[in-house]
């Protein structure tokens, strides 16, 4: 941990209000983009890609700035973010596997 971080911790992580205000306005801008996706009746993969993208961007801003993750040390960031990410990948793999097993059973036993 470098000296500046140590000092910041001892006095409490203090950041200017301007950065919170800036991020807050950005969150509203991104939320407006989300509403616009619905307003313009976008459909198909473009719709869900944009909605999920804006969702992740908003979540990222909240975690990084409002929850101060950006200023935590790397060990804590990794300890918090990596396990859920691994589980997400595992669940994704299981979903694909489950879908494949289901399709195989349909092909082998139903038809």
């Amino acid at each position, binding site marked *: *941990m470098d000296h500046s971080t*140590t000092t910041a*911790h*001892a*006095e*409490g*992580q*203090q*950041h200017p*209000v301007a950065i*919170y*205000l800036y991020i*807050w306005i950005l*969150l*509203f801008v991104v*939320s407006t983009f*989300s*509403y616009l*996706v*619905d307003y313009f009746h976008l459909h198909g993969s473009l*719709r*869900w890609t944009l*909605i*999920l993208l*804006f*969702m992740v961007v*908003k*979540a990222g801003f*909240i*975690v990084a700035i*409002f*929850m*101060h993750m950006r200023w*935590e040390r790397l060990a*804590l960031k990794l*300890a*918090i973010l990596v*396990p*859920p990410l691994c*589980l*997400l990948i595992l*669940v994704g793999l299981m*979903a694909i596997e489950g879908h494949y097993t289901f399709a195989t059973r349909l092909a082998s036993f139903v038809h």
Partner: protein
Amino acid sequence: MSAITLDEHEEHDEHHGHARVNGVMHQFEDIDQQNECYAVGMWSFLVTEIMMFGALFMAYTLYRWRYADSFLAAHQYVHIWPGAINTTLLLASSFTMVLAVHYTQLKKTKLVLMNLGATMFFATAFLVVKIGWEYIPKFQEHLFPGPNFVWDKPEGSKNVAQIFFSFYFTMTGLHGLHVLIGILIIGFLALQHKKKHPAVHDDYMLTEMVALYWHFVDLVWVFIFALFYLW
């Protein structure tokens, strides 16, 4: 076992140096270690919350993928406006909460109380919109899953629509419960700030931990709004 009175216990604490020295409790080497311990503990709790909500989000996504047409038909009953207003309310509450932490660090109690009060106001408004504008009309339209569920749309299956609304009520209800718990915790925190209790007045970390919880509640709503109201 001999009974230890409060006075004896305090003496015991002082004898072993259990009291805080410059805000650092006896088991920690310095304030950095103590603050990091707070953060790790709170984040560990939040990760368990992520696992709980994550499982529900994953199950919802898989069902949505499997029964796309019926879920889309049921989704038409979830209106975007109350969701958009609630997003605005929770974003506003997150901002006032982060300001409450900021002013706690600066020991400006009046501004802390104002911001905590605003956070509670926005959170209460969220619940009013959720119950008054969303839950009650859905109950009146018999969209709550169970024997009284009514589905008269030509498209989509009645059973799958019930699955959709099971997810909707479970996830928004669980989130609403977190909002309610948040209001109670923030109210208690505000009371301690008002009393200038040393645990919150001299150390900003407890306010920071409550703020972490509150931002997490906002975070879950960002996902609910995207997956239930927009997608």
